[in-house]
């Protein structure tokens, strides 16, 4: 019988620390991965499999993730993202979310982004389909630059 002393969850979590301000999940289909590559910004990829250690954010970041699941929306947030956000520090540092999806999924288009936006009280900044068009890449690149600038200005005023 193990007796575990109460400690904070974060201190027990194994994970690789990252200072990237863009953190993303992409399955083996690599759609989201390709989108992030096209952004040409420093970014950290969450492990593809849930049994792998997740990441621990060190800096405020924006999360990019695709939506899974079908009509009911059940299982919309990838398990690997849940594992990552179950770490309190990762929730504290999230500043926004960008959703990937396919409008063919109707009401569940980019639903995972909506769920995280509500849960973590951060804006769902942008939605794109599959690996994104060049227009999506340009808008997100420009949008993120502005977003970070605005955030750091706000912080400086505090």
């Amino acid at each position, binding site marked *: 019988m193990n007796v575990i002393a109460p400690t904070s969850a974060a201190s027990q979590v194994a994970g690789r620390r990252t200072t990237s301000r863009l953190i993303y999940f992409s399955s083996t289909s690599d759609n989201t991965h390709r989108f992030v590559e096209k952004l040409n910004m420093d970014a950290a990829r969450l492990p593809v499999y849930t049994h792998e250690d997740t990441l621990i954010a060190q800096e405020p970041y924006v999360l990019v993730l695709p939506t899974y699941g079908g009509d009911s929306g059940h299982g919309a947030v990838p398990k690997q993202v849940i594992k990552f956000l179950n770490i*309190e520090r990762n929730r504290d540092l999230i500043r926004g979310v960008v959703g990937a999806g396919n409008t063919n999924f109707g009401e569940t288009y980019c639903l995972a982004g909506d769920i995280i936006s*509500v849960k973590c009280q951060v804006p769902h900044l942008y939605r794109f389909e599959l690996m994104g068009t060049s227009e999506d890449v340009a*808008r997100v690149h420009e949008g993120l630059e502005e977003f970070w600038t605005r955030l750091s200005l706000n912080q400086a005023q505090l």
Partner: protein
Amino acid sequence: MTPEKLKLASHVTAINWNRIEDEKDVDVWNRLVNNFWLPEKVPLSNDIQSWATLTPDEQLLTMRVFTGLTLLDTLQGTVGAVSLIPDAITPHEEAVYTNIAFMESVHAKSYSSIFSTLCSTKEIDEAFRWSVENVNLQKKAQIIESYYYGDDPLKRKIASTLLESFLFYSGFYLPMYWSSRAKLTNTADLIRLIIRDEAVHGYYIGYKYQKGLEGLSEERKAELKEYTFELMFELYENEVQYTHDLYDSVGLAEDVKKFLHYNANKALMNLGYEAMFPAAVTDVNPAILSALSPNADENHDFFSGSGSSYVIGKAVNTEDDDWDF
């Protein structure tokens, strides 16, 4: 054309779902099973009154569009998805194709449910006769079919992905258009189920295509990429003609073409290639986009607004059971 001989998987071993080589097979299998539906679940008879408000031209167009879609679903169900089985890399991939094939047959049958609810037998027979006689509809089926009987497994996947993710959309446009005008809304609900399925099919077959590219020579990869774009152009040219055949009578052809461009880009992305049509020609009518997905409009782009008017996404009651914070 006649196939030289029946192609089947060359060797079959008992499928073991407890030993998985590609997790994507399980993910997609589960998703397809969870998405399973039958046309009997959709209250199509609620559209009878709405159908009566369409002009004879509009009714004729709608029936023709649906027989065209029936042909593609039949092709994909009886030949397309089945032709992919012998080339499968994993046994679970074979099982996924059998699911896809069956669902295509469900889709094909569901158009008949719409017909029998809304139209007379004589009208139905005439629409099916049109589908046999329309040159451009027959041509697109023949182009795809010729690759299914061809001897290149990767080209079969390209053709199949373009069918799933591009060729259906000249037809899917119309029920979305009616839905945006509050017409045939139950029919549109059924079509949305088909649209959702085709997205998973196109995604999966495109994914398997990309898996098949791994380890090939750069030369062969370049050949396949070039081939993809050539086939896309060939199909696109025919699709434009087909669109005019159908939609000129109601003045919607130009609007439909934007929808074609938008979906052509998505078909290419499913195969791992960059979008081909620029934003200037993919600006789909917002009413059509929102009939497809209520979250697809510009209001959801935080970056393009001032940011001050931003509202956090609406609450959703679809959270994961195991979401434990």
